[in-house]
Every structure is written in structure tokens, then in C-alpha cells.
């Protein structure tokens, strides 16, 4: 039954509905694949038994003909989503014993639609990272390796476990979260589709917060259609999240299967930055031609404040994180390291419980909010953010969607950038601007680098216009015909 892991999500869904196979069979195949994929270290928790019981429920519902959008579809859940009764760690030592007594809205939506939980995916600690090397549970490996080279490659981050497990065909799709690129960049690194919806589209309730004004849940999938199906299931208004948009959820899958004739695609000239590898630029130009060949018009647009998005992000996100992560103090849940007194307990708990990158960002965030520095750093960054949002608004007066590279490089080897925070931060240079403006973005696998690793292209849309993003993404996907798969080295490595 190994073939059952080679479907796309939509194929599996159709097969389940047609009773070609049962949810139990599908889930068993994926449970087994997850077990074989352990060398990737992509999962923080496997929930095989639970998956089977969910699958049995799904089979009963399918038998009655009343299954949901994802009935019987096995998924991996980033370990940032709180799951009732299942340990949720955010990749951190400080939460490595935490078992939430509640279910995040997004995962609750998925279960309502019949999805099956295979387990919790490893991730960068508190979603802070671009290589999935900051997890307390160890780095995640990318299933992709350079041909002829056994060095481990990073899957990107922070949703690295989600990306890796889907790319390894051990889950049909996974949830991720994207604060500055944490879905799109790993999608690009692992040859997947990664969609960050508009801020407010998916509820943040029950997702462990990194930077509240930026965090947004989204899917990592093998195809654009799969992303559309997942988004329909994940999104929706949630009265428990004050920033959740009170909008109806379109049937995103219904917009697919059309064409892009006459659509206007903007090419932001500022993304053509110094030092952009030639092969990335070449792929981008290829993307432009693909869309033109499909009947779209392309035109240059200006986003003048693009270069400031990344530094502004590295003020705003750490500032919010410094406050969001203050609750991990050893009092109500999670790790406690005893000390001489209360403050000593706090300080030891947080020093031991947080990894180096989290500590760095909490300290940066504390500093930029502190007396005397607030105006120069935080306030200035939020003003720059207004300018970035205005840039996009102006650009979208003349175009329907923007096309850019997803990341400035292919996936790199484990350890290559972990000593240089700023070099690591540059991974998100193309994804952060849309995050800062709250706009939807998608990464579509578009080709392989010369070294044989996947590369993605990004589409950015207007707020709450995921339908347009998905339409154009499908055209890009059709043109790119990306169907490469990594060698299954991990299957034989143990």
C-alpha cells in the first residue's frame, strides 16, 4: 500500500470519497511513512493511535456520505498549534511538558472537516528561525539533498518540520505559521506550495504567539489545489480573536481551473537586489515569461521601502515577542528551574528554557521598547511599516498580483548560517514585506537549482484576495511543471 502516500491531498480526498481506499488504510500508510522518516527529525510528537481512531471516525462519516472537506485526510500539525490533550511545545524546552487543555481554532476547524492528525511537527523554537536549527528537539533535515552529497540540508524555517514531513510524503499536507516567511521560505526550500493568508483570515486563537501583529497560519501542500482546499478548511471568522476578519470564507478551490488572461502581474524592481544569485534571478525571469505566455500582462512596479522591511521587522517582531514570551515564567505551566527567590527562579527558568536565538530576540525586543529607545526604534519601525503598507497599496492600484522570488537562495547546509544571525535573517528578505503589510503570499515550486535543490517563486496579493493569488499560482504551477521528488535516502538510512 506504499502508493497511498503518493497522492496529492485532492487525489486522496477524491479516492476516499470514491471508496478506492479507506481513511484507515491511508492513515496507516502515513503512520508508517512518518515512522520511516524519523531520521528527518521532522516530528515533535507522533500520534499514530489517535490518527487511527480519527480515521475510523472519518470512515464512518464517509460511509454515511456526510464527510467534511478533509474527511479522512492525514495531516501534520506544526507544534505551535495547541492541541487538546497532546503535548504542544513550540519547539522549546520551556514548554516541553505542556499539554494544552484546549484546541486551537484552526486545528478545531480541520478536525471539524474530518482531517486526521498524524502528529505534531518540529519547528524553530517559538517560530524564530529560518532553518529549523533552533528547535530544542534538534534540527530538522530537509528530505532534499544535493545529488552526490550527503551533507544534511536545512528545510527552512520556522515551519521546517511541517515542510520536511510533507516533502517526504509522510503527510498529505501540514499546517504552518508564517510571521516573516515561515511557511513560504520552507516551502521554497522543500519543493512545496506554501500559503500565508491575509492577516486575519485564519484565527490565531490557540496558536502560541510569536509576533501577534504578523503571525498567520497557513498550509504547506504539494499543489496549489491542495493549498486552496486546506485554506478553506482552516480559515474563518473567530469571535475569540479580536483581529480575525469577519468575512465569509470563499470556496477557494472553486477559483481554480481557469486562466490568467488579461490579469496584471506586477514585478517589483526593488526585489532585484544586489547579490541576488543569478539562478534565482533567472528563475524569476522565467516565471515572468510563463505568466506572459499564459496571457497575463506583466509590468514593473515600485515598492520603494522594500529594503527597510527586514530591519523594521527585526524591531517589531522581537518587540512583540519580548512581551508575548514573558508568560513563560515557571509559574503556571512549563519548565521551572528553582532559584534563591522568585526573581532568581524566573531568570534561571528563562535562561535554561529558552534557546540562544529566542533569548537574543527577547533581549532585542526588550531593548527597543525600553525607556529612551522606544521612539527611535519601535515607533520608527511602525512608521516605516505604514510606508511599506502604502507602497503595496499604491502598487495594487495598477496590478492584481506581484511576482517575486520566495527566498534569496536555495536551501543551505545545516550549520552554514547558524553563527551569523543577520545572514540568517536575510532568508526572509522577500517574504517579510508582505508580512509587514498583512498581505497574502504564496510560494510555488518553480524549478531546481544547479545544485539540484528546489526553488520557489512568490506571488503576493491584495488583502483578502487569496482567490487571485491561488489563480495565478495555479498558472505558475502549470507552467513550471515541477514534479521532482527527493530521493528517499532516509528510508534506508536506519
Amino acid at each position: 500500500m506504499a502508493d497511498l502516500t503518493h497522492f496529492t491531498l485532492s487525489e486522496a480526498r477524491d479516492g476516499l470519497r470514491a471508496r478506492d481506499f479507506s481513511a484507515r488504510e491511508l492513515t496507516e500508510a502515513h503512520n508508517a511513512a512518518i515512522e520511516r522518516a524519523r531520521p528527518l527529525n521532522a516530528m515533535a510528537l507522533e500520534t499514530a493511535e489517535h490518527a487511527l481512531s480519527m480515521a475510523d471516525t472519518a470512515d464512518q462519516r464517509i460511509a454515511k456520505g456526510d464527510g467534511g472537506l478533509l474527511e479522512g485526510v492525514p495531516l501534520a500539525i506544526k507544534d505551535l498549534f495547541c492541541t487538546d490533550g497532546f503535548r504542544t511545545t513550540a519547539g522549546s524546552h520551556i514548554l516541553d511538558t505542556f499539554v494544552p487543555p484546549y484546541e486551537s481554532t484552526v486545528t478545531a476547524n480541520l478536525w471539524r472537516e474530518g482531517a486526521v492528525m498524524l502528529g505534531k511537527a518540529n519547528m524553530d523554537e517559538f517560530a524564530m528561525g529560518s532553518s529549523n536549527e533552533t528547535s530544542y528537539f534538534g534540527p530538522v533535515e530537509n528530505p532534499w539533498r544535493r545529488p552526490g552529497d550527503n551533507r544534511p540540508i536545512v528545510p527552512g524555517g520556522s515551519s521546517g518540520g511541517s515542510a520536511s514531513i510533507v516533502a517526504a510524503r509522510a503527510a498529505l499536507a501540514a499546517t504552518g505559521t508564517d510571521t516573516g516567511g515561515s511557511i513560504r521560505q520552507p516551502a521554497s526550500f522543500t519543493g512545496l506550495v506554501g500559503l500565508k493568508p491575509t492577516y486575519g483570515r485564519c484565527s490565531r486563537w490557540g496558536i502560541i504567539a510569536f509576533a501577534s501583529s504578523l503571525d498567520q497560519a497557513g498550509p504547506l501542500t504539494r499543489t496549489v489545489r491542495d493549498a486552496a482546499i486546506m485554506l478553506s478548511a482552516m480559515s474563518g471568522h473567530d469571535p475569540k480573536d479580536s483581529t480575525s476578519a469577519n468575512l465569509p470564507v470563499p470556496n477557494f478551490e472553486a477559483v481554480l481551473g481557469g486562466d490568467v488572461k488579461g490579469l496584471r502581474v506586477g514585478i517589483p524592481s526593488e526585489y532585484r537586489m544586489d547579490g541576488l544569485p543569478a539562478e534565482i534571478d533567472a528563475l524569476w525571469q522565467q516565471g515572468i515569461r510563463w505568466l506572459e505566455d499564459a496571457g497575463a500582462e506583466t509590468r514593473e512596479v515600485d515598492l520603494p521601502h522594500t529594503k527597510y522591511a527586514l530591519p523594521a521587522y527585526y524591531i517589531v517582531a522581537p518587540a512583540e515577542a519580548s512581551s508575548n514570551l514573558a508568560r513563560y515564567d515557571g509559574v503556571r505551566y512549563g519548565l521551572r528551574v528553582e532559584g534563591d527567590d522568585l526573581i532568581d527562579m524566573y531568570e534561571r527558568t528563562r535562561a535554561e528554557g529558552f534557546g540562544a536565538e529566542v533569548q537574543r530576540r527577547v533581549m532585542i525586543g526588550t531593548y527597543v521598547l525600553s525607556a529612551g529607545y522606544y521612539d527611535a526604534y519601535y515607533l520608527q519601525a511602525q512608521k516605516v511599516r505604514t510606508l511599506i503598507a502604502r507602497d503595496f497599496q499604491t502598487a495594487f492600484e495598477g496590478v492584481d498580483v506581484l511576482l517575486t522570488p520566495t527566498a534569496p537562495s536555495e536551501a543551505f547546509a545545516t550549520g552554514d548560517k547558524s553563527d551569523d544571525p543577520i545572514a540568517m535573517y536575510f532568508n526572509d528578505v522577500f517574504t517579510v514585506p508582505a508580512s509587514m503589510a498583512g498581505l497574502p503570499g504564496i510560494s510555488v515550486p518553480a524549478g531546481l537549482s544547479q545544485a539540484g535543490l528546489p526553488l520557489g517563486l512568490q506571488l503576493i496579493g491584495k488583502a483578502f484576495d487569496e482567490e487571485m493569488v491561488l489563480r495565478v499560482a495555479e498558472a505558475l504551477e502549470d507552467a513550471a511543471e515541477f514534479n521532482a521528488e527527493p530521493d528517499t535516502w532516509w528510508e534506508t538510512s536506519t
Partner: protein
Amino acid sequence: MSLDKATVSRIARLARIRVADEDLERLGNELSNILGWVEQLNEVNTDDVPPLTSVVEMQIPQRRDAVTDGAYRDKVLGNAPESEEGFFVVPKVVE
């Protein structure tokens, strides 16, 4: 911007993260590098530009005043490192 050890120490204290004395300098350098890099924002003229308050254009939603939550003490205390008689327990606080 270069952070001296005293500043790093003060920030660490505010953030309630214990930093060993021998690590202050290294951490100071790391933080200084990042701050030095983000300071390029000073190039941007933001006169008369309001800070962004929210990326979503909507009214703050308000909940009805009704008791709809709470009353599950066991769940609230279930993950606590230390609890006693229904209370969370922490090292003695002196006021």
C-alpha cells in the same frame, strides 16, 4: 549602537533572563550587531507618518457581558509546576 555590559545586564534583568557575567560581552556584541543593522531605518523620513496600528481595517470586536468561561480550576492548574489547595505556588514574595 554598541551595548556595554551594564546595559546588557540591565536588559537581561528586565527580560528576566539570567546571563552569566562572562557571557555579557559576547551577547552585547551580538545585540549591537543587530541593532547597528536595524538602525538603517533612521534613513527613512517618517515626518507626518503615523505608526501602523493594525494591518486589518476593522472595528474592535466586543464581547457581550456574560459569564461564558472559567470554572475549570483543574484545567487551569493542570500544568502548574507547583500548586497547593487550589493555588499556584511560587517562592515567597517580599513586598
